[in-house]
């Protein structure tokens, strides 16, 4: 137990330089690249005096080192500044959009895991047979389909031709989010107020975006699961289980899959990055009001504080998920220690 505590403390301490480096890279990218945000925002024809005044206001005239330290201090206080375009705190804008992204990625991940893990396990079981080849090809092909194109094709098929699913937004025109919105997680909110027709509407709007995300990422999980299952299926205890006459299906999907799942869990930490990137593209395609759309909208408006804040939040999400996954792994598998 003491070992575990030590591991967790070391792991948390190791996360700090990682986040710090990401923050520094962002600072360099956003502040030191040619063209300053103020003239970009006010347009090329703004008078010099106005530009200077705005710069003074935003503290962009101070030395870089001071700006850098100030920026780090801001992030530590979880204060991401104020939008340059709207009268709005950046944290408010992000808090509004974050639940939508989490809802989307959560369901996307569930679909990915479900599809990927079962197909991968099945392929490993049928190794070198036609089913195995078919599933491996599926994995490769699906990985190469850009998320946004998958989204557009699903929109075209189910939204336009078959006309059975909505292709944009989180709710339909007759459902008003203001009547149930509390946490921002619409599924949770509608259940809390027991508005089941709204719940149905919210679910229907979630189907296409989450399937888009889930299908595209399932290719990676097919591959991961298959690789791990192949190793596990060769283990002695599997042969022992076969010898005892336990049903083959039970051995594969219960005994083996359970053991193959731990390494898959750790890989999930890395896949979160792909999930976030996929979410940005899915949100744009489906007009899903989440973090990705916020980021792109503000890039078009050149609202630098919000752009910076959104990317920082993405960095924090990725860092904390990989931290949590590693800690869970250490709890599940006592061999993992520094």
């Amino acid at each position, binding site marked *: 137990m003491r070992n575990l505590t030590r591991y967790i403390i070391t792991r948390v301490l190791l996360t700090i330089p990682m986040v710090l480096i990401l923050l520094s890279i962002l600072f360099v990218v956003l502040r030191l690249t040619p063209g300053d945000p103020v003239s970009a925002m006010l347009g090329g024809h703004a008078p010099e005096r106005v530009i200077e005044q705005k710069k003074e206001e935003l503290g962009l005239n101070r030395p870089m080192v001071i700006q850098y330290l100030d920026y780090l201090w801001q992030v530590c206080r979880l204060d991401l500044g104020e939008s340059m375009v709207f009268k709005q705190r950046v944290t408010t804008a992000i808090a509004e959009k974050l639940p939508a992204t989490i809802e989307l990625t959560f369901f996307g991940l569930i679909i990915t895991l479900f599809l990927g893990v079962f197909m991968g396990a099945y392929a490993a079981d049928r190794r070198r047979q036609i089913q195995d080849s078919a599933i491996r090809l599926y994995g490769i092909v699906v990985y190469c389909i850009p998320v946004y194109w998958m989204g557009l094709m699903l929109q075209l098929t189910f939204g*336009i031709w078959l006309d059975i699913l909505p292709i944009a937004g989180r709710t339909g025109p007759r459902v008003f989010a203001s009547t149930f919105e509390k946490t921002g997680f619409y599924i949770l909110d509608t259940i809390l107020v027991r508005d089941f027709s709204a719940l149905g509407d919210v679910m229907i709007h979630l189907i296409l975006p989450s399937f888009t995300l889930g299908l595209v990422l399932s290719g990676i999980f097919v591959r991961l699961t298959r690789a791990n299952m192949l190793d596990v299926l060769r283990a002695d205890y599997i042969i022992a289980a076969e010898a005892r006459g336990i049903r083959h299906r039970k051995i594969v999907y219960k005994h083996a899959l359970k053991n193959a799942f731990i390494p898959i869990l750790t890989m999930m930490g890395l896949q979160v990055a792909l999930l976030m*990137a996929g979410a940005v593209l899915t949100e744009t*395609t489906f007009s899903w009001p989440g973090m990705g759309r916020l980021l792109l909208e503000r890039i078009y408006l050149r609202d630098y504080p919000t752009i910076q804040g959104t990317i920082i939040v993405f960095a924090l999400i990725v860092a904390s998920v990989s931290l949590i996954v590693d800690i869970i792994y250490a709890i599940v598998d006592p061999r993992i220690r520094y």
Partner: protein
Amino acid sequence: MRFSPANAMARGLSPLMRMGKKYGLEWWILLIGAVIILAIIIMAIFPGAFAPFNPHDQNTGPQLLPPGGSHLMGTDNLHRDVWSRIVYGSQTIMRIAILAAILSSFSGISLGLISGFSGGILDRILSLIMDSVYVFPGLILAIAFAAMFGPGVFNITLAVAVIYIPTYFRLVRGQTLSIKEELYVEAARSIGASNFTILWKYIFPNVIATTVVVFTLNVADAIMIEAALTYLGLGLPPSIVDWGMDLAMGKKFLPSGQWWLITFPGAMISILALGFTMLGEGLAEILNPRLLER
């Protein structure tokens, strides 16, 4: 140790032909990938032979014409021929993806070699930076870079290249660490070879073989990132013909059912990425079955 990339290729290819049967699926995956890439490269080099119209020609026929007749893939809202734009668009995406992969492999491999070979504080710092970038979503980083650099072919190439440097760095650094302990490196040092000679003549040739596979898979990824950036409207000025931009434009006509405007550019992005992925997967299996977990 006489070892060159050409030798490695020859060594990889001759058993490939003979033992195509032995490798089964992998061999076919590799072959299909190579054929796809070759076809699109030929298309990019000789666009005139494939495209009946100029990609910018706004006078090819009626607007939003469905596929068929003289317009293989129909026309867009500006009367332009979709197939001709696909042919010319292949140049943009190929150039950017391959150049980006070359840039990032060059910097990633050099940094990885230096970092792994020299060790110490430099190695620690570089590894920490590379690991941090590695775990961060590449696309989001590329979006930030592309937004800051502004539109342009070279800027987008840089934005795509930056995010793949850690991939090469981690691979090469790890291998350098183990190779520098080998006996032949020790021998070279004892006869007075300089650090540069050891790196260039003894370590680099042994590292380069594995990066071939990563390079191929990297191009596939770069293709999807490039198309994603231009789809989001971040990458290129509208005067350039590009699949991602055509896709973004076609998206506006999705509700009215003009399916050909999104189907074909998107399919081409997938097929090209698939070509490189299949080539990489096939190579990985055949050159070194343990490289990618199966």
